[in-house]
């Protein structure tokens, strides 16, 4: 038994000639929020469909809770909740009736399961409203309620913020963070928006044209893409000395020809500059680095990872 909640092994799916998902190895450990990040058409939905057993892999394997999904579907899926693409509901029924159907088929006997799930996503104030009259955002929230109703240990969410307004997106984020913290639910969430994933995930899997380019923790990502102050100075050694002696800065890098990158004291470039100049160091350039996370992904997948 592996210690992953979910693991894919060389998971591949072909549609005729096209390889929608290409030998990807995903690793998700317990209690983590795993962000699957990729542009439209990257293969996120296809991957999640395979994970939920709706689509069969061409080759490769999926293990959830250490068990192969094909042989153990009956044991695995009652412990999983999901939204794949747009959530679907019976339009002639209310939210409550829709969830009632799922609760019954799931064998949930707790009578408060449905009202509880609805109240958690804030859909409990209009009990008589039919799903036909729901906005996309409301349907998305109902989808979440359906996905968490049975208190799953693993939650698979395919772009769940589609159709939500900015407040809705923030609510969703807080909700998922709470869920992860309170109940140690493991969450896999896909998105094509970097900023959204960055604020939520513990680890990001970058998928592009069907390939998983990288799995990287947020910590590592931030470290690798830390922001810095860049100074171009005439006297490199003297400048460094000042940084260490005068400002107690140790987190810096010296590059060629008087180029110094300082990873702390962001926003204090004025003061630093003043001290340099007072000590007869010529400063020919001061620059704050861009938010490099975005650059990093652009480099990785060649394009913008946002709308």
């Amino acid at each position, binding site marked *: 038994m592996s210690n992953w909640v979910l693991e894919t092994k060389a998971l591949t799916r072909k549609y005729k000639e096209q390889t929608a998902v290409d030998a990807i190895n995903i690793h998700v450990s317990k209690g983590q929020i795993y962000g699957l990040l990729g542009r439209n058409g990257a293969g996120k939905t296809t991957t999640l469909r395979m994970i939920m057993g*709706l689509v069969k892999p061409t080759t490769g394997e999926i293990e959830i809770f250490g068990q192969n999904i094909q042989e153990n579907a009956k044991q695995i*899926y*009652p412990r999983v909740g999901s939204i*794949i693409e747009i959530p*679907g509901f019976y339009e002639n029924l209310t939210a409550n009736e829709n969830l009632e159907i*799922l609760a*019954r*088929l799931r064998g949930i006997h707790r009578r408060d399961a449905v009202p509880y799930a609805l109240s958690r996503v804030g859909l409990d104030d209009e009990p008589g409203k039919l799903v036909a009259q729901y906005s996309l955002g409301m349907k998305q929230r109902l989808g979440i309620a359906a996905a968490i109703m049975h208190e799953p240990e693993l939650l698979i969410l395919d772009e769940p913020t589609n159709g939500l307004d900015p407040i809705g997106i923030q609510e969703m984020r807080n909700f998922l963070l709470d869920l992860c913290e309170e109940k140690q639910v493991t969450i896999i969430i896909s998105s094509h928006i970097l900023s959204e994933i960055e604020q939520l995930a513990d680890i990001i899997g970058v998928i592009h044209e069907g390939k998983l380019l990288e799995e990287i923790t947020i910590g590592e990502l931030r470290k690798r893409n830390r922001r810095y102050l860049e100074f171009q100075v005439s006297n490199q050694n003297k400048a460094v000395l000042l940084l260490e002696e005068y400002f107690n800065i140790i987190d810096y890098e010296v590059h060629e020809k008087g180029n110094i990158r300082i990873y702390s004291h962001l926003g204090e470039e004025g003061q630093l500059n003043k001290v340099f100049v007072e000590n007869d160091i010529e400063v020919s350039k001061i620059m704050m680095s861009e938010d490099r996370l975005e650059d990093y992904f652009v480099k990785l997948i060649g394009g913008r990872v946002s709308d």
Partner: protein
Amino acid sequence: MINLLYTEFLKLKRSQMLLISMLGAATAPFVCFIAYLNMKSKKTGVPVLFNEVFSETNLYVVLLTGVTLYGVIATYLFNREYTENTLKNLLTIPVSRISFFMSKLILLLIWILLLTVVAWGLTLIFGLIGQFEGLSLTVLIKAFKEYIVGGIFLFLLTAPTILVTLLFKNYVPSLVFTIAITMVNVLIGNSEYRVLYPWSAVLVIANKDFFPEYLPVYSYISIFTTSLLGFIVAIIHFKKEEIH
């Protein structure tokens, strides 16, 4: 299975389909009633017999309205899970695909029988209103049997329509298919081939109106093979199908 069936009923809440199907089931009794009233007013001497009205109505139900109506209901039951994107919710619970399929079939059978009883009941009520003659318990029971037999066989013959629905996931091909079936019914309704064509064979069996040239077993074989083949292929397809 009980839970699945229960949820199938719940899904029909506020659905217009139930009412529409009732209206659909009422057309044959109503049209026949009007036709016989008309005849009665023209040929005053000749009595209109219940026996005859029941048979005539069942002929319209089995050959015309039933095929189309039950086909539409079957299509509705299966197709809505695709159009409303609900199938993935159920299958990831996970619900057994076979049980799910079966629960739909059971609901369809109940629905068809309900409409059959409606058609029978309306024929009776219209007959009483029109003061038709020759009503007896024997006539009622005989008619009821014929109606129910017709209903059950038409249910069995929804299999190919269900298959078409599962293949195309759209109302239109299924509708075209049921209309084509009905057209053939009309075309061969008076020829001896009606014994062999599964959809017209239903009426032949219900009315025990066999031809001496063809053994009754041919009619049964025709219906059962069509039904069985349809269901088997539909279930195999549904079992293997990927949900996109």
